[in-house]
C-alpha cells in the first residue's frame, strides 16, 4: 500500500504543492532552469511573460497502467517485535534472535481510470496488486519468518481544490510461509485517509496524513507465537481498528530528497474473550529517508527507522525496533 501512494497520491499532490510554492515565492526575474522565463516568441526568440510552453502527450481515456519493482536490503533489530523480556528469554526461558538482515523484493502493478474533473474535485479510481518476498539472512529466523505476501487493493482518490486529498479503499493481504507453504496471516482492511501537502519553504514541503481503518484478520498459531502473543485459541484475535497521524517534511537538497517523518498510531484490538481482549497499542515511529533519482523511472533510497510500542497488554509489553536499509525502485507508467 505504501508503494501505491508513491505512485498515485503523493506525486500529484507534490505537483500541486509546487504550484502553490511558485505563487508564494514570486521571483521577480526569470526562474532558473527555464528559457528566458517565458516562451520563445518571435523570430529572434525573445522572451515573453506567458511562460514556457512545452508540448506533452496526455492520455484522454481508457486505463493508465503502472508497474514497479523494488529491492530492499535492511538490517533490523527485533524483527519479531518482541518485548525486551521475551527477547532476552526472561519470560520464555529462551533467548530470541534479536537482529537480522532482511532482503525484500516487491513487484507491483495497477491501473487507474482517467480522472473525473468537477469544478472543485478530481476523482480517480484505481486498483492494483503487489507481491513481496522476504528473506531473513539470519538462519535461525529464516525458517519461521521467510514469507511472501500478496496484496490486492482498490482505492478511490478524491483531490479537493483546497489541497486536501481524500482516499477510501479496501485491501486484502495474504502472507504465506516459504518453508511450509502454509498461510500464516491474512487480513481484509477497509480504510479511509486524508492528506494535505503544502509548501513551508522554497525547497521544502510539509505533508500531513491522517488515516484509519478496520483490520479483519486471521492468523495461524505459529504466526501468533512469533508475534509474541500467547493463547492461540482464536485465530482472529488480531482483529483491530487503527488510527494514525503522520507528519513528513520533504526537503530538496541538491539532487537528494531528504524526508524526516514522525508517525503516531493507535490500535485497539476488538476481539473479546481472547488473549488480546481489551488491549490497545500506541506506536511511535521516527524515520529519516534520503531519495536520489538515478533516472526518470529509477529511484535509490536509504532509510533509518525507529519504532517504539507502548501496549496495555502485559504479555505484549513495550517493545522497540529499528532498521537501516537501502532500496532501489523502478517504476513505470504505460
Amino acid at each position, binding site marked *: 500500500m505504501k508503494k501505491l501512494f508513491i505512485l498515485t497520491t503523493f506525486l500529484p499532490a507534490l505537483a500541486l504543492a509546487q504550484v502553490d510554492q*511558485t505563487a508564494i515565492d514570486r521571483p521577480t526575474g526569470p526562474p532558473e532552469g527555464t528559457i528566458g522565463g517565458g516562451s520563445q516568441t518571435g523570430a529572434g526568440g525573445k522572451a515573453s511573460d506567458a511562460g514556457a510552453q512545452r508540448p506533452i502527450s496526455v492520455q484522454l481515456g481508457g486505463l493508465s497502467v503502472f508497474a514497479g519493482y523494488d529491492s530492499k536490503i535492511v538490517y533490523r533489530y527485533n524483527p519479531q517485535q518482541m518485548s525486551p523480556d521475551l527477547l532476552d528469554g526472561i519470560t520464555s526461558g529462551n533467548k530470541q534472535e534479536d537482529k537480522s538482515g532482511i532482503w525484500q523484493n516487491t513487484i507491483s502493478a495497477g491501473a487507474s481510470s482517467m480522472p473525473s474533473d468537477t469544478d472543485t474535485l478530481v476523482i480517480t479510481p484505481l486498483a492494483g496488486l503487489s507481491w513481496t518476498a522476504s528473506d531473513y539472512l539470519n538462519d535461525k529466523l529464516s525458517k519461521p519468518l521467510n514469507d511472501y505476501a500478496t496484496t490486492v487493493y482498490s482505492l478511490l482518490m478524491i483531490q479537493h*481544490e483546497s489541497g486536501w486529498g481524500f482516499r477510501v479503499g479496501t485491501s486484502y493481504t495474504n502472507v504465506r510461509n516459504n518453508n511450509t507453504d502454509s498461510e500464516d496471516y491474512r487480513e481484509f482492511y477497509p480504510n479511509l485517509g486524508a492528506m494535505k501537502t503544502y509548501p513551508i519553504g522554497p525547497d521544502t514541503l510539509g505533508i500531513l496524513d491522517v488515516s484509519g481503518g478496520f483490520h479483519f484478520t486471521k492468523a495461524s498459531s505459529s504466526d501468533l507465537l512469533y508475534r509474541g502473543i500467547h493463547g492461540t485459541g482464536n485465530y482472529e484475535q488480531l482483529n483491530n481498528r487503527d488510527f494514525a497521524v503522520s507528519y513528513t517534511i520533504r526537503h530538496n537538497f541538491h539532487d537528494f530528497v531528504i524526508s524526516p517523518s514522525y508517525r503516531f498510531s493507535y490500535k485497539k484490538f476488538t476481539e473479546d474473550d481472547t488473549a488480546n481482549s481489551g488491549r490497545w497499542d500506541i506506536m511511535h515511529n521516527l524515520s529519516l529517508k534520503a531519495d536520489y533519482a538515478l533516472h526518470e523511472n529509477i529511484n535509490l533510497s536509504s532509510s533509518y527507522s525507529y519504532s517504539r510500542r507502548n501496549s496495555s497488554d502485559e504479555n505484549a509489553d513495550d517493545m522497540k525496533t529499528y532498521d537501516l536499509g537501502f532500496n532501489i525502485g523502478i517504476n513505470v507508467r504505460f
Partner: protein
Amino acid sequence: MSKLLLVFIVSLVRFICYGYSEVLRHEVTYGVGGFDRAITGKSNLPIINRLKTGDFISSQSYLTTGANAYGEISINESLLLRIGSNSILDFNSPAIYKLVNGTILFCVQNRSSLSLSSTNGSAEITGPCTFIAESTSNGGYKFISLSGKPVVRTGDGESVIPAGRLVLVLGETDALGNAYDIDLLLLLKSSLLINAFEEPPPTMKKIGLAVYSQQLRLKGKYNALIGDATTDKNLQMWVLGESGQNEASKK
C-alpha cells in the same frame, strides 16, 4: 478636504457624462514599472496617466506596459486582468478587449463572456476559467487555458478548451488553429504573469487542481518549446538539442 471635494465633483461629472457603468469602477490592484493608461482627449491627443496600486479607472482606454512593468486590474469584481510587460491592450469595455501586443491573463470567475481580439484574430470566451493570451506575429494570439473548461467561439465554430491546452486563434482566418497540450506545471513556474505579482491569482486553487489532473493523465513530454506563429501555417518549435542549444524549427 478640498481634494475629496474635487474627487466628488469629478466623479459626479463623469457620472452625468458617461453613466454609472463608466464611473471609476475598475481598481488597479497591482502596478509596477511603466504601467500606463492612455485615453483620447478632447483634441484627439492622447492623455497618458501612470497607474499605481489603488487607482480606479474606467474602460474605453488603452493599457500599456513597458519593460519589466506589470499591471493588474479588478474589473467589476468578477474579472481579474493581468498585463505582462511590453504589452498594449485596448480596454474597450468590461466585455470587449483587443490585445495589440504582448501577454495578458484573465481570471473569469463566473459564466460571463468576453470578446478578445487581436490585430487580426478574434474570439469570444465564456468562463468560468483562467487563461493566458499571447499575441503572435501573424496577428492572432495563443489562447492557453489554465483552469476550467472555457468555451472559445470564433466565426468558424466553438470549442471547449480544457486546462493545459494551447490553441491558436488565427490571424488570417476567423478560426481556431491547432491545439497542443502543454506542461502546465512548467508554464506556471516560468510565467511572470503568475510569479511577478504580489499575490497569486484568485483562481490559483483551481489551477493547482488542473495541474493535479494533468499529472494523472501525463504520458510523456516532448523535448521542445512552442514559439511564435509567424503565419497561420507556421508555428515555431524550439527543439532542445542534446548540447543544450536551442534549435528553431517550423511545423
